[in-house]
């Protein structure tokens, strides 16, 4: 399985994503600089976390207009699996690959801590190693993770079962208290229509090592490997 991590000026979870991918796939991903003109054929594209362009204007906004994003959008429409983590999720919404937008956290503060998320559907490229309804403990670290979309979009997401993860408490109950950032309907991650593109705020690449953030993120990467190497 071949993967690429796109590096933007200000990306800072690119190495973490690469470590996780290498651990899961056995090969290091290609690290592609945002100004590189050609993107090799890969099975998976990762838009990593960080502060691309300093998060200036809006998180992910400037990166989403980078020339390489046109190619990424094209691949996305062709069905190439893409995942955007944190700042990468913001790029996906800003580029129109996913609906809605990630606004400033309701508490107006950066927030870095472990949260629990509930896996809605375990049949997707990104979640097949989990059980449906499983609760994962995964870190978040962001300033703008407050998902917003209009009611029609939200209904569509719900109807199509495209809400990938919701913030929950330790027992899996989706409650207001468990929502770290004010996100609409506790949304922590969403899919595109076909399920080939996933954006999520929590960092599965920070939960692949018992010494660091736990291992609940490992399934995310093994799911991908299983889905894409088959």
């Amino acid at each position: 399985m071949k993967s690429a991590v796109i590096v933007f000026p200000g990306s800072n979870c690119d190495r973490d994503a690469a470590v996780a991918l290498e651990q899961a796939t056995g090969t290091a991903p290609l690290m592609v600089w945002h100004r590189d003109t050609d993107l090799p054929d890969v099975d998976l594209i990762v838009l990593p976390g960080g502060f691309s362009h300093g998060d200036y204007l809006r998180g992910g906004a400037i990166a989403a207009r980078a020339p390489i994003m046109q190619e990424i959008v094209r691949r996305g429409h062709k069905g190439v699996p893409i995942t955007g983590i944190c700042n990468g999720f913001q790029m996906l919404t800003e580029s129109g690959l996913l609906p809605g937008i990630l606004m400033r956290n309701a508490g107006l503060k950066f927030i870095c801590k472990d949260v629990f998320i509930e896996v809605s559907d375990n049949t997707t490229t990104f979640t097949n190693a989990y059980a449906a309804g499983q609760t994962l403990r995964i870190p978040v670290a962001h300033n703008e993770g407050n998902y917003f979309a209009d009611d029609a979009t939200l209904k569509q997401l719900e109807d199509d079962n495209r809400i990938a993860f919701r913030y929950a408490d330790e027992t899996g109950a989706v409650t207001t208290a468990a929502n770290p950032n004010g996100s609409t309907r506790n949304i922590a991650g969403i899919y595109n229509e076909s399920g080939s593109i996933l954006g999520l705020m929590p960092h599965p690449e920070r939960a692949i090592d018992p010494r660091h953030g736990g291992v609940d993120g490992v399934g995310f990467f093994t799911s991908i490997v299983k889905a894409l190497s088959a």
Partner: protein
Amino acid sequence: MSLANQSVNQAAAAEHGLSTSEYDSMMSIMGRTPSVTELGIFSVMWSEHCSYKSSKKWLMTLPTTGPQVICGPGENAGVVDIGDGLAAVFKIESHNHPSFIEPRQGAATGVGGIMRDIFTMGARPVANLNALRFGDPDHPKTRHLVSGVVAGIGGYGNCMGIPTVGGETNFDPAYNGNILVNAMTVGVAPANKIFYSAATGIGNPVVYVGSKTGRDGIHGATMASAEFSEDSEEKRPTVQVGDPFTEKLLLEACLELMATDAIIAIQDMGAAGLTCSTVEMADKGGVGIELNLDEVPIRETGMTPYEIMLSESQERMLMVLHPGEEDIARAIFEKWELDFAIVGTVTDTGHVVVKSGADIVADIPVKPLVEASPLYDRPWEPSTPRPVLAPDTAMENKDPMVALVQLLGSPNGSSRRWIWEQYDHMVMGDTVQRPGGDSAIVRLHGTNRGLAITTDCTPRYCAAAPETGGRQAAAEAWRNLIAVGATPLALTNNLNFGNPERPEIMGQFVECVKGISAAATALDFPVVSGNVSLYNETNGEAILPTPVIGGLGLIDDIDQTVAVGFTDVAQDVILIGDTTGWLGASAYLKTVEGRDEGAPPPVEFEVEKRNGIFIRDLIRDGAITACHDISDGGVLVAVAEMAMAGNIGASVNSSGKTPLLAWLFGEDQARYVVTTKDSEAIVSAAKMHGVSATIIGRTGGVALTVDDTHTISVKALQESHEYWLPNYMAAP
């Protein structure tokens, strides 16, 4: 800057903060009337901040060497060998005055500045820490300052992608008019590829990279050396705005260039900007440098040479390159969309010569400028010793659990979670002990080894007995490294004091330095870098003496470390070290009884070492399951913190030690609480090593109980511990 238009005379020099004798020595070095630009250069080079004129005499007494030390004080940061061909590069730096004026930007640029010091030496930063001191929580400015400083530190470090893994935070009315923001960064570099700042090679190009130069922070360096007064609001426009995004690019570009062999010398532009970096690079290399200001990338129109030389715009670096490597370097900086300009050459004149258009605007001999920089032996008064209090000084019928809750829920005793959750402490995937423990542990990427890092200082001890306070600060840092299983390697220090022209303040400084020096020598814990921040006072009210110690330790195997939290039920709780019930200058007396009295606990290095090495070996042998050093609040607070972190209760037995409150809350030094599955082995090993070890309790249940009579649930402790700071910050 009206100053720029003045003709240079004694009055102008005085406005630049030069004394009469400094003015005279400038005149004799120059042998003519200096230009305004030259005066500006003298004034910043001779400011307290750049010249260390009040402190140098005493700093020279600190022990700075050891087999592990690759580079001690004098360069951008200290460098120690950490084995396997790697070096750790670290330093702490203050940004106190700017953070008081504009907390968010002041703190942010402080973090940016210390990170530049680290990557200038070729190291990738792997961890940030921050030591903060704020005024009385009830002071009208405090909340705003806390919120701004934390947002600024987080904003900068988070954007850079460097985890902020620890620090300390105190509140005391002595900081009402003068908060302290000390930022520490640790980086890792190949031990054989450290970059230094000595310019060499006559004719070699001098290159400017990073952001453009604007009118930011002109006279920041002299401001950081002047006491605050009511009108310091006037100095506001000198505050710089940080751009962490540009610094992230600068970091990556510099490390990319450093992987080639293009760089001869490199120096970041910090305080006093282009002036300080040019003079230091020339001085260290024993050469001259000629600068052409027309080539300096400028952000604003109409900047004068004076302004360009003194600007403190952030995110800039100066380098000397090997001739012929300019294009390689330029291509890298252009890739990262940063400015790159050849602004000068290394010369054999021994002068810094600054040109602007057809004019020479400054021509100063480097050696005299640096060597004649004033050094003072300021008069100092020894401190008056406080009486030693007897253990029965504590209130007789105070319920210990009520006191415990009070301590854990007090401004100085409560959890700092509200702060560290605003810091990305996990990015880079190597934080194996997060904030909240004794030391943070950051794994060396791709290995099973790690660095332990902490910052420590107990200002109330330093105020009560400065030398003891200095000894204690260094010993506590050492202890915090030990407590996770690390071997302490070296320390960095940030000496924050009031106005050194007052003999009693200078006395605090001198005695604290003596204490640190004694501890560093005795504990093989040399001082490899540091920073001095003086004149921390407003309208004559000085801060508490606050010599912050940043400690670094090495861990050979991160699987042989422990944390503070209880790990299981039915384990024995052992107290290591001697307990006399020392309540003088304790948190208990101050917080619970409102008494700031008594001599602080003495620090005995022989005991310190014996106990510490014993603990570290236990951790390495896997003999203990949790460890916490005892500091503020004594044994009971330490046990409570272990219970809260592990979510497991414990029963503690004083075995009739009296007075009970002194035994529970006294702050005797060199002590630890550990838990184990096999206490017999530990007690007998302790006996063999001459270490005192007492089984004082057992883990289990959901409550913390003392002598079967006093009890409180762990949940109630957690609630009171976690309540204060977020609740305080949520109030309008």
